[in-house]
């Protein structure tokens, strides 16, 4: 069993090291997130009340898009240089290695979004409590996005026009996370309490944690054979 954990740890360490050496890749999706959120006030006007209403939804939709944009990188490089085939052939279960890769991916794309989101929330006049809930909902929600996205990334591996297809496959599956993520912040703003929303986000995370790595591993085997 320790063999599996060792392998997972080394996969995470390797992916983090690669990400550190290609910082521009990591920064690109983060900057994308910031730009998309900043575009909305320009498009809909700077009315503070309107912005406060729209803020949680805008931040969440932008986070969804930024996560999706980063997905193409999840397996593409490993697929190109043959590392992925070695992982498929490895004695450790592929689903656990996939879980490790997804974890590393979340640490380099999801976590930066979570950290910077409160700053963007300030631009939308969200108060302190709403910012805290926004942080919590993103912290619970973005790992789910990475896990679900892994299935789509594996299925579209090496396909022509994979990016747009990935969006079509993955975005409908992101909808529940979006609803409860943005809903948590709105519920706080309406003084309803965000507990129920956050609980459901946690349930979605646990469910995908069990199911998604397995489906991703299956999809990878199909893509590689």
């Amino acid at each position, binding site marked *: 069993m320790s063999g599996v954990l060792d392998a997972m740890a080394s996969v995470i360490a390797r992916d983090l090291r690669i990400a550190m050496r290609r910082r521009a890749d990591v920064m690109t999706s983060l900057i994308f997130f910031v730009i998309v959120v900043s575009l909305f006030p320009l498009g809909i006007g700077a009315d503070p009340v309107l912005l406060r209403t729209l803020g949680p939804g805008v931040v969440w939709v932008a986070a969804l898009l930024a996560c999706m944009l980063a997905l193409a990188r999840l397996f593409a490089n490993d697929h190109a240089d043959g590392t992925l085939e070695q992982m498929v052939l490895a004695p450790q279960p592929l689903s656990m290695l996939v879980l490790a890769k997804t974890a590393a991916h979340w640490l380099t794309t999801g976590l930066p979004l979570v950290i910077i989101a409160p700053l963007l929330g300030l631009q939308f006049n969200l108060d302190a409590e709403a910012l805290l809930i926004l942080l919590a909902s993103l912290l619970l929600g973005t790992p789910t996005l990475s896990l679900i996205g892994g*299935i789509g990334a594996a299925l579209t591996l090496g396909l022509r026009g994979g990016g747009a297809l990935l969006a*079509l496959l993955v975005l409908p599956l992101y909808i529940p996370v979006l609803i409860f993520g943005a*809903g948590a912040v709105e519920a706080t703003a309406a003084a309803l309490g965000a507990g129920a929303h956050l609980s*459901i986000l946690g349930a979605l995370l646990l469910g995908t944690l069990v199911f998604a790595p397995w489906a991703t591993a299956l*999809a990878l085997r199909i893509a590689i054979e």
Partner: protein
Amino acid sequence: MTMPDIRWYKFSSPQTFYPLAGTLAPWFAIAAAVFAVYGLYIGFFLAPTDFQQGEAYRIIFIHVPAAWMSMFLYLVMAGWAAVGLAWNTRLSSMMAIAIAPTGAMMTFIALWTGALWGKPMWGAWWVWDARLTSELILLFLYLGFMFLHAAIEDPRRADRAAAVIAIVGAINVPIIYFSVKWWNTLHQGASVNLTRSSTMASTMLWGMLIMSIAFWLYSIAVVLVRVRCVILERERNADWVKQLGART
């Protein structure tokens, strides 16, 4: 290894299923036409005018069967795709890909007729009601399945990859439905109540059931014809297809 001589296994081969589908398809098509004519007759001539909704309600004779079929066909499609993935049976995957366009069309009809119904009833072509929204997402799921299948050159890989997304989608359909439903109720309150008055005239109900049967039969007929095309396309290098081509 000898295959057991049971009819079901016999017809799981594309070669034997192809003529069977060809024989059955016209009968299903004829039956569908008969039921559709009868159902529409009930719908337009026998069913009473609704005292709340007037004549416009009559679109339910198309709308409700299409909505039922759109959901049911997704499950059938995902089921065949899963069978194809698990047991590597070629015909199952062909059935899945043959069902997808019909399912997508049913979803589209349900949305379109829903919009036509919504305008006179609620005064809006579209409301973000839970059922409408999840039906729209169902259309996206169908399109994702079809486009993923179309994007992969190798048909076996396409079958298996599309099967994975179909299964993931099938698991997600109830999650999406309930999340949209809760979002709707938490978000803006039930501005629109879709549940019709509980006492529905029995002729209306009969018309709807007959039309549903017609939609079922139509779907079966169309899927059988389409699966024949898929079989010919996939098996074009097989000897029996070449002989078929030589005969005609």
